[in-house]
């Protein structure tokens, strides 16, 4: 290998010297093994521990008649998560008489994030309601919860989508 054994010189006819052994040992196999182990452990280690996002759902009301805080229409901001990564939003509340204007948005920085930031600059008491359509996927849900963190929106809630909401999406044609 990488060593060259020095020939122990034998004196001419003199005393027979004990053969001087080299004090070096060939470390190559050990190095091989060390790197093999190193590679193995590097590949099997899961470095990044998964991160988590904490969500707290409201406590289920014990009594259906229990009084709940009414949300003011002026504070309400509803985000609808549609299929194909689409987001719709409207301001105010939807009921039989008032049909708010539905807007289309997306998950980019100029999309829903800007809208949320602008909206909160105008009205800091905004409460965001997130309603995910059945065709939306879980990633959309995580993304929109993420937007809440990014924009610093403290008050938001995951709400079930209603039939009126889906009808609104359909009729808007967006």
């Amino acid at each position, binding site marked *: 290998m*990488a060593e060259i054994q020095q020939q122990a010189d034998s004196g001419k006819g003199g005393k027979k010297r004990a053969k001087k052994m080299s004090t070096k040992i060939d470390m190559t196999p050990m190095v091989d093994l060390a790197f093999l182990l190193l590679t193995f452990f590097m590949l099997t280690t*899961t470095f990044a521990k998964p*991160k988590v996002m*904490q969500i707290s759902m409201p406590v289920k009301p014990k009594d259906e008649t229990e009084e709940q805080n009414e949300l003011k229409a002026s504070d309400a901001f509803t985000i609808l998560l549609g299929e194909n990564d689409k987001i719709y939003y409207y301001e105010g509340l939807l009921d039989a008489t008032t049909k708010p204007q539905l807007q289309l948005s997306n998950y980019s920085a100029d999309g829903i994030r800007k809208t949320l930031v602008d909206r909160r600059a105008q009205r800091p008491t905004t409460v965001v309601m997130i309603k995910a359509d059945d065709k939306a*996927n*879980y990633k959309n849900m995580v993304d929109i919860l993420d937007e809440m963190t*990014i*924009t610093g929106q403290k008050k938001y809630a995951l709400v079930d989508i209603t039939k009126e909401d889906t009808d609104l999406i359909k009729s808007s044609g967006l």
Partner: protein
Amino acid sequence: MPKVKPHRVSPSLDMTPMVDLAFLLVTFFMLTATPTEDTAVVVDTPSSVSDKQLPDKGVLQISIDKEGRVFFSSDSQPVKIAALEKVGAKYGQSFSAKEKKQFALLPDFGLPAQQLKSYLNLPAEQRKAVKQPGIPVDSLNNQLAEWVMAARAENIRTFNSAPYIAIKGDGTADVPTVKNVIKILQEKNLNRFYLVTDLETKPVASN
């Protein structure tokens, strides 16, 4: 002029520092390694800006794969065995000590309680071929709630603390399944849980 003899350098080089380094790294990786578990289902989690770590201990994890199948796992073997006994008893299944041991070693599972026994008796290499249907989560046959409550009760009994409940959903999983799982937890008055995500860098919200 005498010829300049090239200085003869021994071709051997001192490998000691390299070996030192290599073994240092080996030791480091050995000590920090948490081997990747061979889970029954591949879940590609979406990313989020949250930098909160998943706790090391006391986690009950509910995985939802892209087909909407639900899997359950716990990181503590005694908790798993106790949950198996409890849920098994409820569905008229009893398990031998060997089956319990096998169950404790499973990283996760997604089978109705009725099918667990036959699955546990399969040799380990044949288990991979079994397509697990997921734990039933519909309102008529809500086994997930049983598992969660049984594991939670055992966790509280042994560790004196309520476990963290983590939902690990695939990015393409559909919302109704995820919502259903959340609803089941809410019905059991478990209102705080974690959504497992990957890390992404936090963009700055400008206005």
